[in-house]
């Protein structure tokens, strides 16, 4: 019974934990611009993150080694250092976007400018990491993140013609006046939103924080196979709400406030209140995950003690990196950069950095020396190889497309 509870909780937190500022912005922006013509990317992204996170979770549970630890073992210290610098930069960009996202959610609820909220949010993120137990923060923010479900309720209450949505999604066509490069640019942003490297750093390190062993592989599978796809449904709901309400009148999404308009129209002030709680929890949870991930990656590369399972004094270097990342993230956020633009760039750079983490995990998940009889099945390897190609193509195309389309302008 207790085990069942743990699994349920894990699934719920996976749903709530999947969606972050990147998903919110990218799905709403794409829905408003392309309706359902990019819905297939969400499906491709979800299958990818399921595959990737399941391997990373299994490797962590069986070998007791988290992702970046293995990256250095398999790629050697030089290449792994280049990888670390790249991943750390992308992670910092994402952390900045998430902290700004928390501040933007509070701005909508209070009419106080987000720049005033930003330092408060950064401090709160750090305090929670400093003082709150790993399991507690995962449960609290995961469960609160479920408030985002109100987006799905919005779409359902709007009573759309499901048949024609399905038709549009399965027969994607370019809207008039739109070019193919921009379409693929947004495809990569959406893919980056679903398959973000920090999710895997966090998931695999989290497995070790929670002391997973071989007997927890069931929990791993339940979280990944049920939690992430349901989280993906939330992404599709965000896209659909924008497609139904913002696209017909020609609104392009530039602010978090616009993402909330459909829910406010359909469900009134209660809907808005629940959604703002969802925005807050999803971005705050992701800010915690990215802040911790910056510490995880650096500490795992050098072999330092890391994690919240020991007291901060026993993982001094790890906590120093986390603190520094939060401070730098807050400073970048406080400079006059547009937080929504930071989010979009973080998604593109996530796609660029993805192969660097995906490839080593795919290799180690096949290594009998680490995994014993828990190596990848043939099916996982077949899918894993297909995704290796997808991930590499997306990474190679991301930057050229960014310049060719002036970042989707």
């Amino acid at each position, binding site marked *: 019974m207790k085990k069942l509870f743990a699994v349920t909780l894990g699934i719920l937190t996976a749903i709530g934990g999947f969606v972050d500022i990147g998903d919110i912005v990218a799905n709403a922006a794409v829905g408003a611009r392309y309706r359902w013509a990019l819905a297939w990317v969400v499906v491709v992204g979800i299958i990818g993150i399921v595959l990737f996170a399941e391997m990373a979770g299994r490797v962590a549970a069986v070998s007791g*080694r988290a992702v970046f630890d293995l990256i250095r073992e398999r790629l050697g*210290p030089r290449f792994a250092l280049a990888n670390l610098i790249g991943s750390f930069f992308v992670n910092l960009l994402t952390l900045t976007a998430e902290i700004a996202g928390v501040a933007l959610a509070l701005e909508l609820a209070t009419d106080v400018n987000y720049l005033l909220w930003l330092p408060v949010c950064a401090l709160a993120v750090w305090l929670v990491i400093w*003082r709150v137990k790993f399991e*507690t923060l995962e449960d609290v923010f995961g469960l609160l993140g479920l408030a985002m479900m109100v987006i799905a309720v919005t779409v359902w209450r709007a009573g759309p013609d499901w048949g024609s949505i399905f038709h549009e999604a399965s027969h994607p066509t370019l809207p008039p006046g739109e070019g193919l490069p921009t379409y693929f640019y947004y495809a990569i942003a959406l893919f980056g939103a679903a398959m973000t490297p920090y999710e895997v750093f966090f998931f695999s390190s989290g497995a070790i924080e929670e002391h997973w062993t071989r007997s927890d592989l069931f929990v791993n599978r339940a979280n990944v196979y049920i939690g992430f796809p349901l989280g993906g449904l939330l992404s599709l709901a965000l896209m659909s709400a924008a497609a139904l309400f913002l696209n017909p009148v020609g609104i392009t999404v530039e602010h978090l406030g616009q993402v909330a308009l459909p829910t406010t129209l359909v469900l009134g002030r209660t809907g808005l209140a629940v959604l703002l709680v969802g925005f807050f929890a999803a971005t705050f949870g992701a800010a915690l995950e990215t802040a911790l991930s910056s510490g995880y990656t650096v500490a795992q590369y050098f072999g330092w*003690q890391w994690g919240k399972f020991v007291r*901060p004094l026993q993982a001094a270097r790890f906590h120093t990196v986390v603190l520094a990342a939060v401070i730098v993230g807050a400073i970048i956020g406080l400079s006059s950069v547009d937080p929504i633009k930071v989010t979009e760039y973080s998604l593109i750079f996530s796609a660029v950095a993805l192969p660097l983490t995906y490839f080593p995990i795919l290799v180690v998940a096949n290594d009998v020396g680490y995994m014993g009889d828990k190596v990848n099945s043939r099916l996982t390897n077949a899918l894993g190889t297909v995704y290796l190609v997808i991930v590499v193509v997306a990474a190679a195309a991301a930057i050229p497309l960014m310049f060719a389309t002036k970042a989707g302008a």
Partner: protein
Amino acid sequence: MMAAARVMDAALELLDRQLIDCDDRLAGNVDDVEIVIPDRWPDGASGELPVVTALLSGPGVLAERFGGSLGRGWSALHRRLHPDGALISIPIGQVRDIGSAIRLGLRSDQLASNRMEVWFRDHVVGKIPGAGHAAE
């Protein structure tokens, strides 16, 4: 019963692996491996094999492995910070198990690679209230 001899490849199974101390603390990585070739080799020591005497761990060791200008700069910086040149050498006799991580029979605070940890503990993290308490 005599265990069968175990064969392993050093770069694959030792290099860059996580070290874990006797209190289950993470204690750095294997940054290099010390191999001692018999004195009179190759002429007078035909039957004797070289022996692995120690695992090496610490930023100075890692820097030397990097080579190139990055490695040289890093290791020069390291020598300035630690002029005693102490590199951390873990005698092979202190190794308890070689698996996905390498378990040691000693405590991490006996290792020189731990000095930076101590510095950050004393000067940064230790100054923040609540550092010594477990999270709630």
